[in-house]
C-alpha cells in the first residue's frame, strides 16, 4: 500500500522523461501520457478507499525516519485531492489529444503536462514544508512552459506577468522557510506543529500571515489576484482549463493544510481570512461582469470561487472546513469542464468574443447543454453540486454566526448568475452571427473526443451532487482530521 503514495509522483516524472525521448512520435507520446494518467487515477482512487477505511499512510522517503528525512503522507485530504486532480488531468489530456491544437504546437506539451501532474501530486502528498516548496515549483515550472508554448506575442506578455508574480511568491516562500527553520529548527510539517506551539505568540502570528500571503498569491485571493485573469486566458483551451481549474486549488490546498496543521487556534488568522474571502468573491465576480470575452469572464470567476473556499477555511469549524473541501472538489470539476466548454465554443465559432457569437444553440446543441449544466452548477442552482457546496458553506457560516460573510456569499452567487447569463444569452440565444472562420465543423473524431472529455467532467460534477451525502460525510471526516492535527502528528512521528 505504501507504493500508492509515491507512485502518483514517480510515475508521471518517469513518463515525462520517456515522453521527451520519444518526442518525434506523437502517437507514442499520447499512449504514454494517457496510460500514465489512467494508472495514476486508478491508484488515487484505491488510495482514497484505503486511507478512508484504514487511516493515513506515511512513507519515509529514502528510509530516513520522520523529522530527519522527507515524509510523504497520504491522509484523507491528500487522497481526495489526488483523486480529483488525476481524474481532471486525464480528462484534459484526452481533450487536448482531440483538439490537437495545443498538442501539435510543440513536442514539449506532453512532457510538460506530465511534469505538471507529478508536481501537483507531490504537493498533495508531501509532509514537509520545504518539499512542498519544491513540489509547487515543479508544477509552476511546467505551467510556465505550457502557458508559453508556441511563443505568440500575447502568450509571451501574459507569461511574463505570470512568471514574475509566481517568482515573487516563491521567493517569499523561501524567505518564510528560512525564518521558520531558524525559529523552529525543522521543516517537517508534523514536527513543526510541535515546535511552533512553543514559540512566542507574535512569531506564530507572523508565520501564519507570511504563509497565508505566499499561498494566497498562488491561489489568487483578493489583493493578490490580478495576475490570474491576465495570464490564464491566452493559452490554448486545455491548458487554460487545467491551470485555472486545478493549479490555483493547489494554493488553496496548501493554505488549508498549513493553516490548520501548523498553527494553534490562537494564531489562526480567522477574521482576516473571512474579510479577504468576502472581498475576493465580490471583486472577482464584478471583474467578470465587466469582461467581453468568455475565457476572461470565466477567469475572473475563478478568483471569485477561491473566495468561497477561503471562507470555509476562515470559519475554522468542522462544518466550514468540510464545506471548503466539498466546494474545492466540485469547483475543480465544474470549472475545468466550463473552460473546456469555452474551448468547444471557440472551436465552433472561431472566437470567444460575446459580441461576435450568437445562436449557437442551433448549431451546437450538445455544447449548449454542457454549458448549461456546468454554469448552473457553478452558480449553485439545485440540485447540482454547486448548490450542495454553497448550502454547506452558508450553514457553516450561520452556525458560527458570521452573517456578514454569508450575505456576501449569497450576493456574489447572484452576480455570478448574472455574468453567466450574459454568456448564455449572447452566445447561445439570438440569431446566428456570421462569425470568423470556424476552426472545425461539429463532425469528426476529434470533436467527439473533445465533447466526450468535457461531458465526462460535467458528468462527474453531477455525480458529486447525486452522491452528495456520502461525499459530504467524507469531507466532514476530512475536516475533523484537519482540525485535530494530533492524529496527523502521531501518524508521522509515531508519538
Amino acid at each position, binding site marked *: 500500500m505504501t507504493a500508492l503514495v509515491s507512485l502518483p509522483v514517480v510515475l508521471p516524472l518517469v513518463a515525462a522523461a520517456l515522453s521527451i525521448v520519444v518526442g518525434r512520435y506523437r502517437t507514442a507520446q499520447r499512449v504514454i501520457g494517457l496510460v500514465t494518467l489512467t494508472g495514476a487515477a486508478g491508484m488515487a482512487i484505491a488510495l482514497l478507499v484505503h486511507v478512508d477505511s484504514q487511516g493515513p499512510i506515511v512513507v519515509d522517503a529514502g528510509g530516513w525516519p520522520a523529522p530527519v528525512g522527507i515524509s510523504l503522507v497520504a491522509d484523507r485530504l491528500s487522497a481526495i485531492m489526488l483523486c480529483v486532480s488525476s481524474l481532471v488531468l486525464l480528462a484534459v489530456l484526452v481533450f487536448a489529444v482531440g483538439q490537437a491544437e495545443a498538442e*501539435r*504546437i*510543440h513536442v514539449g506539451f506532453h512532457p510538460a503536462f506530465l511534469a505538471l501532474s507529478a508536481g501537483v501530486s507531490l504537493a498533495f502528498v508531501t509532509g514537509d514544508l*520545504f518539499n512542498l516548496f*519544491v513540489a509547487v*515549483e515543479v508544477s509552476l*515550472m511546467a505551467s*510556465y*512552459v505550457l502557458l*508559453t508554448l*508556441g*511563443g*505568440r*506575442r*500575447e502568450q*509571451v*506578455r*501574459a*507569461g*511574463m*506577468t505570470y*512568471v*514574475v508574480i509566481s*517568482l*515573487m511568491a*516563491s*521567493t517569499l516562500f*523561501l*524567505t518564510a*522557510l*528560512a*525564518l521558520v*527553520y*531558524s525559529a523552529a*529548527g525543522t*521543516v517537517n510539517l508534523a514536527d513543526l506543529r510541535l515546535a511552533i506551539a512553543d514559540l512566542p505568540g507574535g512569531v506564530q502570528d507572523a508565520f501564519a500571515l507570511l504563509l497565508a500571503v505566499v499561498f494566497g498569491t498562488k491561489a489568487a485571493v483578493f489583493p493578490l489576484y490580478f495576475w490570474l485573469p*491576465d495570464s490564464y486566458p491566452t493559452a490554448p483551451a486545455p491548458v487554460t482549463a487545467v491551470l485555472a481549474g486545478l493549479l490555483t486549488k493547489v494554493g488553496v490546498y496548501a493554505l488549508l493544510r498549513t493553516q490548520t496543521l501548523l498553527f494553534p487556534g490562537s494564531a489562526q488568522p480567522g477574521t482576516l481570512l473571512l474579510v479577504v474571502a468576502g472581498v475576493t468573491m465580490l471583486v472577482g465576480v464584478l471583474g467578470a461582469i*465587466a*469582461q*467581453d*470575452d468568455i475565457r*476572461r469572464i470565466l477567469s475572473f470567476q475563478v478568483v471569485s470561487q477561491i473566495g468561497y473556499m477561503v471562507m470555509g477555511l476562515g470559519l475554522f469549524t468542522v462544518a466550514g472546513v468540510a464545506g471548503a473541501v466539498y466546494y474545492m472538489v466540485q469547483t475543480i470539476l465544474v470549472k475545468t469542464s466550463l473552460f473546456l466548454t469555452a474551448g468547444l465554443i471557440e472551436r465552433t465559432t472561431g472566437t470567444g*468574443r460575446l*459580441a*461576435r457569437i450568437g445562436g449557437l444553440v442551433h448549431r451546437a446543441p450538445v455544447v449548449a447543454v454542457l454549458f448549461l449544466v456546468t454554469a448552473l452548477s457553478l452558480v449553485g442552482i439545485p440540485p447540482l453540486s454547486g448548490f450542495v457546496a454553497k448550502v454547506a458553506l452558508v450553514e457553516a457560516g450561520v452556525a458560527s454566526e458570521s452573517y456578514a460573510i454569508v450575505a456576501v456569499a449569497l450576493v456574489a452567487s447572484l452576480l455570478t448568475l448574472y455574468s453567466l447569463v450574459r454568456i448564455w444569452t449572447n452566445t447561445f440565444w439570438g440569431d446566428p452571427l456570421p462569425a470568423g472562420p470556424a476552426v472545425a465543423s461539429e463532425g469528426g473524431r476529434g470533436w467527439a473526443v473533445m465533447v466526450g472529455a468535457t461531458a465526462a467532467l460535467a458528468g462527474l460534477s453531477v455525480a458529486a451532487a447525486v452522491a452528495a451525502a456520502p461525499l459530504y460525510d467524507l469531507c466532514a471526516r476530512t475536516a475533523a482530521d484537519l482540525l485535530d492535527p494530533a492524529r496527523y502528528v502521531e501518524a508521522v512521528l509515531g508519538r
Partner: protein
Amino acid sequence: MSVLLAFVAAVLMGVGTYLVLQRQLSRIVIGVGLMGHGANVLFVLSAQGRGRPAFTTGHDKGPFTDPLPEALALTGIVITFAVTAFLLALAYRSWLVTHDDEVEDAIEDRLIARRTAEDETRRVLGGPLSDSDPEAGLTDTDLAGDPDRQRDRDRDRDSGRPGDADGGDPPGADGPRGEGP
C-alpha cells in the same frame, strides 16, 4: 557575522524588489535573481549552531554546523537558476516579437478602459451607450501597441533586423530568426 549577513540579505532583497518594480524586462530578471540570493543568504543564517566548521576530519570529533540549511539553500539556488534561465529565454522571445524591452499592457484592459471612456462621453452628450463589439473600429495599430513602437518595428523589419510585428508565428517555428541584435 550574523548581523552583517542579515544586513546583506536585507540589501539584496531591497535592491531586488526595486528592480522588479521596473518596467524593463532585463531589470526585472536581475531583480528576481538578487531577491533569490537574499533568500538563500537568509537560509545560511538560519543554521542552528552557526560558526562551527562545516566538516570535521577523522581526528577531530568536535561539533559541526547544521548541514540542512546548506542543502535547502542549494535546492533553492538550483530552482532560482532554472527559473531565471527560463525568464531570460522568455525576455529574449519578448524582444523578438515586440522588439522592445518593456512589459506590455494587456489588450483587454486597454479595450475596457477605452469603452468606459466612450460610454462616459456618450452619456455626457446624451447618445446611446455602446453595446457593440469593442474591437470594432480599432485598427491593427491599436491592437498591436503604441504607434511609435509600431513605427520602430516597421523600420527594423525594413532594415532586415528581427522583429515580428503581427506576432503570428507558424507553429513550431521557435528558434531565433534573423541575425540577432
